């Protein structure tokens, strides 16, 4: 990043120009322009992000219910938090979330990194096929979830059909079965987001200067040593960036899972965001769900902090 001190551009020019021109150059001072340009964005974010956030924190200490606006709001102190952390169910939802996050990341790193290494061989048509692989990443997760419910139909769906081409196990009920449902969302997420990991690994691979491999060649390093001592350390920052970002996104995953399993069967795939939506907009326990929202937000914010550090590191 180039962040040269730049405040004095007009000053420098002004000093070097005759007095008559100075008036014209000045117009608005640099500081005025800077704040004029930046403040609308900051104000919008304060109004639509920070204000609601503070409100959430306030509500988390009350017994407010949004479906009964007339009822007086009562301050309950930390009772919502105590109830939340003391309830067994919460750990179940967090466990479902963790299962989803960990497995999607492991599988996607393995497939994404392998694909990147293969694409980096620059076979003919590599860039065309890379573009094809990237398509699912940009699609709407909710709509993707909806159409995968069709692909997953146990009696008539193509997923079950393809599985049966290889092993005759009969109808595969991905969404309805307690054992398979957690994997149904992992498969869809992998289909959608492996390209993300792949793309960042590819960027990492392309940042490695060729002379490192040539030097290793001279030292008679074998392929495995080259991968372990040159490739892997060099792409690590990129991989970290990808895993952090996708990890955070999957931690708060909502759209795709709602449409695919809506948390079921039972609450096997009820990840944190889905539970939050149920508490807030179906049971209308606004205060209680605000406390949960605060806990989720603090977690995401902490991870986000690490992500931005990684981001700045890669930038350099």
């Amino acid at each position: 990043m180039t962040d040269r001190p730049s405040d004095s551009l007009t000053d420098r020019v002004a000093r070097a120009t005759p007095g008559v021109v100075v008036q014209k150059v000045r117009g608005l001072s640099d500081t005025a322009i800077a704040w004029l340009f930046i403040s609308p964005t900051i104000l919008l974010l304060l109004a639509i992000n920070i204000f609601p956030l503070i409100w959430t924190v306030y509500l988390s200490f009350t017994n407010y219910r949004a479906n009964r606006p007339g009822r007086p709001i009562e301050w309950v102190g930390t009772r919502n938090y105590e109830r939340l952390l003391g309830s067994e169910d919460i750990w179940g939802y967090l466990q479902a979330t963790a299962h989803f996050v960990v497995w999607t990341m492991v599988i996607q790193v393995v497939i994404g990194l392998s694909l990147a290494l293969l694409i980096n061989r620059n076979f003919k048509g590599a860039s065309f096929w890379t573009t094809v692989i990237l398509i699912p990443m940009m699609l709407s997760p909710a709509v993707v979830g909806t159409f995968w419910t069709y692909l997953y139909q146990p009696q008539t769906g193509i997923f079950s059909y393809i599985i049966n081409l290889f092993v005759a196990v009969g109808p595969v009920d991905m969404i309805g079965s307690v054992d398979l449902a957690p994997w149904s969302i992992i498969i869809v997420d992998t289909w959608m987001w492996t390209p993300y990991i792949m793309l960042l690994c590819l960027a990492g691979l392309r940042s490695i200067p060729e002379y490192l491999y040539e030097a290793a060649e001279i030292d008679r390093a074998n392929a495995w040593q080259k991968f372990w001592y040159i490739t892997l350390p060099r792409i690590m920052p990129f991989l970290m960036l990808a895993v952090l970002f996708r990890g955070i996104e999957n931690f708060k995953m909502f759209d795709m899972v709602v449409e695919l399993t809506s948390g079921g069967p039972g609450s096997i795939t009820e990840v944190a965001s889905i539970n939050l939506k149920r508490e807030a907009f179906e049971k209308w326990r606004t205060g209680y769900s605000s406390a949960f929202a605060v806990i989720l937000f603090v977690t995401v914010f902490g991870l986000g902090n690490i992500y931005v550090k990684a981001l700045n590191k890669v930038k350099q």
Partner: protein
Amino acid sequence: MSAAATTGTIGTTAHSVVESSSRGKWLAGLVVVAYALITLIPLVWILATSLKSPPDSISYPPKVIFEPSMEGYVNLFTTRSRQTEEYIENLGPAETWYDEIVRKRNMVIVGPSRFLDRYFNSVVIGFGSTFLAVFLGTLAAYGFSRFKVPLKDDLLFFILSTRMMPPIAVAIPIYLMYRTLGLSDTALGMILLYTAVNVSLSVWLLKGFMDEIPREYEEAAVVDGYTRLQAFWKVVLPQARSGIAATAIFCLIFAWNEYAFALLLTSGNAQTAPPFIPIIIGEGGLDWPAVAAGTTLFLLPIVFFTVLLRNQLLRGITFGAVRK
């Protein structure tokens, strides 16, 4: 992409090395193409399903070869009611091709469905919020790129951190706030909300693009007598045009795809397509071709833009941190 030149230069080494590396290339290509084709199966299947008749869409084994039908699209855009055979015979011959399709199922078209409204909402909210986010983002990015702003890094982090927020976590107070302000279920409310979601991406991406524009251009313009604002308007903006276009497409895609806020904050009036498409299933009783038709029409613009943006994707998904 650029690495082709760098890896292609070792062709002068021993013959056997070249031989094995070209076979390796061929194998690598084979695996990647296989993966790409598997990736395409769900998409191709949805496109095919949109062109099937409802019975074909639920036949087993799944039909790869089928007689194309427009029934899915007709059902997507219309609401129909079931009638007796006599009633339909008394209607006389069908006037249009879509009347004919519907009558074969003992139905008559009673009016348009709400799909077009929902699609139109998506377009209005998508473009409206994109315009605002890019407008605000361009100004802020220029401010951050060229001026010494106190606490610059903290402000930039603050801007990015708003994007990390789980939508459901802020949805509760936004729901209450919009209810008070009369903004719930309005296009304006959704435009403001999506602008706030997208402005972080817009600022970060555009700051990257602006940092790449040499300052010398503006300095020259200022020496020529332009004010700072004129230099921004006449020198920097034209230079940043392609960056602004790429940023706009990213914002548009994210607004187009957004689901959580649309689900919770809109219903009859300002609802966009993503929360509507799943409902089509209920309306027609497992009418998969209609769902597939809606999905196809919704996803096609994104596929188009993804291909258009392929060289900028990396930048877009890393908030401008990784360039190539």
